[in-house]
């Protein structure tokens, strides 16, 4: 049996990245992702890799751009205000079709906000953040073990589709300790990076890493080629966990740690004779639209539970498409909805139906 270790989420994620072949990490200090950088700083030199503390998040993401353009497996991590700063660079990375992994250990906002767990960067992660038509694959782990496996997979997804992948966690996931193992991590065959700027060695034509296309037709063509890849991602990469959803009185849609709270609520409500299901999107983009539409055939109502003022609920509504009522319950600013609060919300919904 594989050896299990007790590790913090942030450290386990850093370890998984290194095991997935990440040799370069560019970061800038911000709470609550500090352990990722600290772990990298300690371990990277031991494996011949590089940890670099940049002068800003802006510089860090552009270092990622340069290294990714040169074909390296590269990663950066930050928390909400830092991701805002990185968003310019993320747009350029997407526009230049570069693979990389970006971690956001989300904290409460807007502005400097707070340092407690939040999910208020859902819009930023899934609808852009930076300028222009682009997407990131956004992965939302709910346990330390999943932080490990999704991090390993993130690099392969990035390389396969030549696009940035974001791992979205929160301070609770990042700080909590759980047993993890690193055996049998997901691994895919990925295409060779023939486009990378590694030097021509006078053996091939030059490669250019670029997002500038001054002719509208040329820019549209590049963007549409990327759109085709996005369609492939939507087809191939949706991940979702569905529990107890068929014929449920209320289906909670929740991701990350909120999904764990939702499962507790599911058990609590069962004792009261109310059937609660849980749909947990593991990929926030691509969103599990089809799965939710399928669940909407038999479930009676949906409740999106988030650590925000209501962001993912918009995608849930689009997926349910008016077939069933969709409700929202959330706390924000670093406040985590408790099982009791959610139970009370469900009782209100079920009561209203009667």
């Amino acid at each position, binding site marked *: 049996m594989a050896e299990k270790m007790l590790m913090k989420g942030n450290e386990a994620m850093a370890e998984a990245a290194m095991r997935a072949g990440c040799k*370069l990490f*560019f970061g800038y200090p911000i709470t609550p992702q500090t352990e990722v950088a600290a772990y990298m700083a300690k371990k990277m030199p031991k494996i011949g890799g590089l940890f670099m503390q940049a002068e800003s998040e802006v510089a860090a993401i552009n270092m990622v751009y340069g*290294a990714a*353009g040169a074909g390296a497996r590269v990663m950066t991590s930050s928390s909400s205000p830092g991701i805002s700063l990185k968003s310019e660079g993320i747009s350029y990375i997407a526009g230049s079709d570069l693979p990389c992994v970006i971690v956001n250990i989300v904290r409460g906002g807007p502005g400097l906000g707070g340092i407690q767990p939040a999910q208020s960067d859902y819009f930023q992660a899934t609808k852009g953040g930076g300028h222009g038509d682009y997407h990131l694959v956004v992965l939302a782990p709910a346990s330390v073990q999943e932080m490990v496996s999704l991090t390993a997979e993130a690099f392969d997804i990035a390389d396969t589709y030549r696009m940035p992948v974001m791992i979205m966690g929160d301070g609770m996931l990042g700080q909590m300790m759980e047993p993890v193992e690193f055996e049998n991590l997901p691994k895919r065959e990925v295409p060779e990076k023939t486009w990378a700027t590694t*030097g*021509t060695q*006078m053996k091939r034509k030059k490669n*250019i890493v670029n997002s500038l296309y001054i002719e509208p037709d040329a820019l549209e063509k590049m963007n549409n080629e990327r759109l085709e890849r996005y369609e492939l991602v939507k087809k191939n990469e949706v991940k979702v966990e569905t529990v107890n959803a068929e014929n449920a009185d209320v289906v909670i849609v929740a991701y990350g740690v909120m999904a764990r709270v939702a499962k507790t609520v599911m058990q609590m409500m069962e004792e009261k004779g109310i059937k609660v299901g849980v749909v947990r999107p593991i990929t926030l983009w691509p969103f599990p639209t089809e799965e939710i539409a399928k669940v909407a055939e038999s479930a009676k109502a949906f409740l999106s539970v988030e650590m925000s003022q209501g962001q993912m609920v918009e995608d849930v509504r689009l997926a349910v498409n008016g077939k069933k009522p969709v409700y929202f319950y959330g706390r924000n600013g670093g406040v985590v909805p408790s099982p009791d609060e959610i139970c009370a919300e469900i009782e209100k919904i079920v009561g209203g139906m009667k």
Partner: protein
Amino acid sequence: MAKVFEKPHALSDVSMHYCPGCTHGIIHRLVAEVIDELGIEGRTIGVAPVGCSVFAYNYFECDMQEAAHGRAPAVATGIKRAVKDSIVFTYQGDGDLAAIGTAETVHAAARGENITIIFVNNAIYGMTGGQMAPTSLVGQVTQTTPYGRDTSTQGYPIRVCEMLSQVEGAAYLERVAVNNIPNIRKAKKAIKKAFQNQIDGKGFSLIEVLSICPTNWGMSPQESMKWLEENMMPVYPLGVYKDKEQGEA
């Protein structure tokens, strides 16, 4: 018949978009000649900026990356750290390097990043149509300083070589000009040394090239050269500002 003059191999065989009389063409050629002479084209990766030289990725035959405005030294850092035996240079204008990209410039120097920066200073934003640059002279008329650069609102020009000479990590800083043949030869020598330093692992080298912008200065090329000599050179004296080999300049 013997060929006495030809296009450097490292310079692409395409027409450039630069305005008539602009000195970017000369500086591109010097960089390409140096790449040829050092035999490093196959392992060189260039970084183009945002500004007039935004299309530089079309003009050099080596691998190229296009950076966001001001971020070229950070992008170059990423490349150099990923491909250790590569030769990485950035080609940046004054707005790119000394305004929006000041932090990236200073910190690449502070790290002693083993890269080469070609910094073209023509005291104006060219690509966007002639706005004030961080290097515009006091009193200089531009589109955004129609009454001349007023120090009470716009402050004073930034002298990049002087500023970076205080940064311990910088290995070699020289200011040159391309206003006449002797100076062009000196500029090439400096650029060559800046690349040689990188080959030898000596660290951060930056060559500031005083350049002209006839279009946005609103002068003929000849008048521009005269303006450069009479107005820019006193504010931006040519010379070596730092050379770790020679001790402090």
